[in-house]
């Protein structure tokens, strides 16, 4: 019995060893904390293999909301931060966690909702009028409610529009963008989404874009290498190679070339 326990323990460690060596097979790798929009839209599936082929550095993406991505990086659990909420990103650098922030690309947020548009959002002439229509129309609005970049933007849009009364029509899903769109599609709710996730999303059901084009809906993405002064273990050399590539002419044209259903999802605007 004791011997068989010993045998079992040693085989368990053999398995663990096999798994860990398999995981470390590619020893040059970096961890990028990013948002669901960059990963779920398929952008990373296209541009990261190009970077890895050129540099030999494997990029491991942890795709979570911007708020969670920043927390991961603040704990030293990522080498690069690639998110979309400029004020939080600047605070990240100012607090000494990041080396320098670079603009990478932009697209925009859009207001989506049921094609019947019960609250009459599509008729609105301005962003404020569109938000007023959602707030007074009675139909539900599905909010991310997860401290993501999109959620932070949504909250500032409401407060700028002077809408503070959020009662039964306002539903916080506490989930990612895709999960929130699934819920909005299910309950016939309005929602705010980034255009990339929207274009790549395959369960639109009855939802369509009802309001777009206001300058306040501009959505800027930024990239930051995590500071080795704060966390000596970060793979700063490889992280810097990645940041430099993303904002280089080559990385920027790879981003510009990425399309879904004929539409460009992200517009590069790095200033190297």
């Amino acid at each position, binding site marked *: *019995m*004791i011997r068989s*326990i010993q045998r*079992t*323990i040693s*085989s*368990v460690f053999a*398995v*663990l060893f*096999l*798994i*860990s060596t*398999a*995981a470390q097979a590619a020893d040059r790798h970096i*961890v990028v904390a990013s948002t*669901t929009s960059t990963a*779920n839209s398929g952008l990373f*599936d296209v541009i990261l293999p190009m970077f890895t082929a050129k540099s030999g550095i494997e990029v*491991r*993406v*942890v*795709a979570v909301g911007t708020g969670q991505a920043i927390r991961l990086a603040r*704990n*030293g*659990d990522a080498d690069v931060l690639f998110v979309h909420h400029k004020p939080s990103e600047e605070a990240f650098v100012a607090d000494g966690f990041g080396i320098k922030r670079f603009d990478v690309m932009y697209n925009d947020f859009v207001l989506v909702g049921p094609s019947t548009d019960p609250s009459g959002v599509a008729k609105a002439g301005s962003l404020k009028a569109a938000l007023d229509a959602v707030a007074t129309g009675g139909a539900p609005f599905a909010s991310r409610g997860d401290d993501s970049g999109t959620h932070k933007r949504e909250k500032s849009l409401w407060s700028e529009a002077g809408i503070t009364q959020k009662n039964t029509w306002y539903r916080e899903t506490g989930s*990612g*963008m*895709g*999960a929130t*769109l*699934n819920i909005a599609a299910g309950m016939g709710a309005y929602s705010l989404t980034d255009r990339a996730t929207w274009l*790549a*999303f*395959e*369960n*639109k059901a009855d939802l369509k874009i009802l309001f777009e084009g206001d300058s306040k809906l501009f959505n800027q993405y930024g990239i930051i290498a995590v500071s080795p002064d704060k*966390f000596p*273990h970060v793979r700063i050399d490889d992280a810097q190679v990645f940041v430099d590539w993303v904002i280089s002419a080559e990385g920027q044209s790879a981003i510009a070339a990425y399309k879904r259903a004929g539409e460009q999802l992200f517009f590069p605007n790095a200033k190297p």
Partner: protein
Amino acid sequence: MAEFGDAFGAAVGLVLSGDQELGEIVTLSIQVSFAAVALATVIGIPVAALLTVCRFPGRTIAIAALNTLMGLPPVVVGLAVYLVLSRAGPLGELGLLFTPTAMVIAQTLLITPIVAAIAHRVLEDHLVEYGEQFRAFRMNRRQQATTLAFEARFALITAVLAGFGRAVAEVGAVMIVGGNIDGVTRVMTTAIALETSKGDLALALGLGIVLLALALAANALAFAVRSLASRWADGPSEREQLR
């Protein structure tokens, strides 16, 4: 409802295409869950055996605690393991976060109470049968525990299978400590969550069907091993009785 038809199509298509990425995801799911089950068995069954044969103050509380821990929420386990393995945490130096090893640790914590609690129930039943013999042979606690576990070894497979079922199906813990990194820590359940969030419900459900098939295969294998092994174990003694 068209999704269900599409899902079966997607599941069959995925398996038939011999998709390399699916192969990697399935392999990692099995590796992680098997390692976690093996560790949980090595820890859980001795604990269960000792809880069954030993009498000590607070034993009832220990058993109640074990049963309560069966309901540990995976997300809470994932979060706790994240806080420990994070670079900002006590074991951050090891650099284990976002690796399969971290997933094995989280799942082991999650399923050890399940394996131990179910094994305890199985062994209690066996103790009724063997208790008198133990007293007759004047066995000590340790001998009783090992004998009991050995005699109940085929019935204990149920406990191990329950642990495997939980490990292979949970998503909350592995999502947090593994990070669902493509090609490194993506397993069946996190892939399903990802496809759901992309709105590709048919593919998500298709992956779910593949996962179910995997669990079915594991159960069938365990059943086969159990019946073959018990026949083999009983075989010689029956022949001896006939002689």
